[in-house]
């Protein structure tokens, strides 16, 4: 069961919303599929992304995956802990493994995200 206070995408990202700020990461399922994460490439603060744009890359030993913006916004900060400890994405995907904080450009986009139940159902089929 994934945390119920978060929202999710079909690309296996999670979103935590606080006011007009959204924190984004990847789910335990995604981290598991990728294997041991070795590197995360994050955008610089100030860069803006539309919904669904590729904003970064997560690399494991044997695979690489683009990170797609679940909602549009401007980057406030990236998690610079991940530079030295990319394994946080595996060990604490919803906490210390967070990736970017965005300032939302359109809170209306949140409605399109999945809730915990819908996401659980998605990965149950997969």
């Amino acid at each position, binding site marked *: 069961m994934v945390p119920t206070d978060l929202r999710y995408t079909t690309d296996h990202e999670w979103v935590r919303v606080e006011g007009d700020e959204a924190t984004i990461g990847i789910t335990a399922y995604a981290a598991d599929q990728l*294997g*041991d994460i*070795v*590197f995360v490439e994050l955008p610089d603060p100030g860069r803006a992304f539309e919904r669904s744009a590729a904003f970064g890359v997560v*690399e494991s*030993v*044997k695979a690489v995956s683009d990170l797609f913006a679940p909602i549009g916004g401007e980057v406030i900060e990236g998690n610079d802990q991940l530079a030295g400890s*990319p*394994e946080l994405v595996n060990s604490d995907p919803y906490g210390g493994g967070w990736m970017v904080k965005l300032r939302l450009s359109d809170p209306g986009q949140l409605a399109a995200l999945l809730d915990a139940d819908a996401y659980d159902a998605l990965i149950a089929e997969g």
Partner: protein
Amino acid sequence: MSVTGERLQPTIFELGRPGRGGGKIPHPPKDALDRLPSEARRAVPPGLPEMNELDVVRHYVNLSQLNYAVDTGFYPLGSCTMKFNPKLNEWAARLPGFADLHPMAPDEVAQGSLQLLWELEQALMEISGMRAVTLQPAAGAQGELTGILMIREYHRARGETDRDEVLVPDSSHGTNPATASMAGYRTITIPSAADGGVDLDAFSAALGPGTAAVMITNPSTLGLFESRIGELLEAVHAAGALAYMDGANLNAVMGRFKPGEAGFDVMHFNVHKTFSTPHGGGGPGAGPVGVGETLIPYLPTPRVLREDDGTFRLERAHERPSSIGRLRSFVGNTGVLVRAYAYILAHGGPGLREVSDDAVLAANYLKHRLSDAYDIPYDRPCKHEFVASAATIKKHTGVRTLDIAKRLIDYGYHPPTIYFPLIVEEGMLIEPTETESVETLDAFADALIAIAAEAAASPDLVTGAPHSAPVRRLDEATAARQPNLRWRPMTGAQTPCPD
């Protein structure tokens, strides 16, 4: 039984001692470097190890024994064509007349090598049905870049600068889209049809005025011949695009199918696959490129030319004004190409056709032997390689293809290619080649069947494999997170010196 030697070695840095070695080069005069300005001189000597020759030899002999190799055992690596590397070729490449020739020596003193290269071009033209060949590219991937750059130049010369897309099937080798990107193209990936071949409708829908080229491997990376290739090539040309063939799988069709005659505009050869030049632990290779009439003007310079009087020379730059230029220094990996030439002459026309016949027969035989114990996703005759899957085994036992591959090491085999092409779940791509005996094929099949049984009865044996290699499964995560790419004296304290 270990499949390789066992003697792990310290690094050469740990073996060296000050004062050892020497005796290879005469001493220069003491003032030899005095005329060099001091600011250009090296202040701190490089920290290279000092070793006596015996220790160097033991080091490299023992290290070599830690390797699995074709000369050690069976290497059923799909898409790699690990056939026997003929020893005559090693002898030939080392003939001083070939080995000692400087690449910028004048043509008149290089007639032997120039003739060899020219004859090799002719042979590759005949094998592929292409109208001209360049031997310049240093590897298959560089051959791909050569081909795509020629295509780009072709469109540019016709003023068709809006063509910015290259289409590839989802089963393609990673070098194809990487090459397209290097040439400034966007890659459009087309899902394969259910039977593993190109989806003609999907390709046709994607083809248009924005398409520069398609890149097709035939036989495909699944080891299947593209029966719809004729229609696909027609559709490609009708859209004004050109067709590139990745020739990695040429071993399957020599004497039976000529890409140039079928309508491909350009292709590369992997001489380290089809034409037996050794893999060398990862290289060198060579990636000659063949073209149809359309692309001849754009070939890299210099080409090898034969004059009317029977002498040979290198083309001069101004003789091919539309050339895409150079992909590398000098004329090509001649040392590798000598080996390919010898291989082709040893076989001749009948021999090369027999190579393909035997490669295809061996693959189908092996596929048949494994068809009970493993899933065979594409249930039709394959060419020189085939895909097997451990999907059902994984479902019932949790054991994955990776584990099965590692367990094969304990049985004395190099694993096949795994998880490629990406479109097959828990896939193994198996290519026996034509130089393995039936006994070897049967023994390998027996091993894989036994491992399938182990997966059900004692899965730990498989998931914990390999048990008998000099090292066991490695910590690749730390290697990537905290890369140690260079020896430093303190490093030895972190991981023990094997001594």
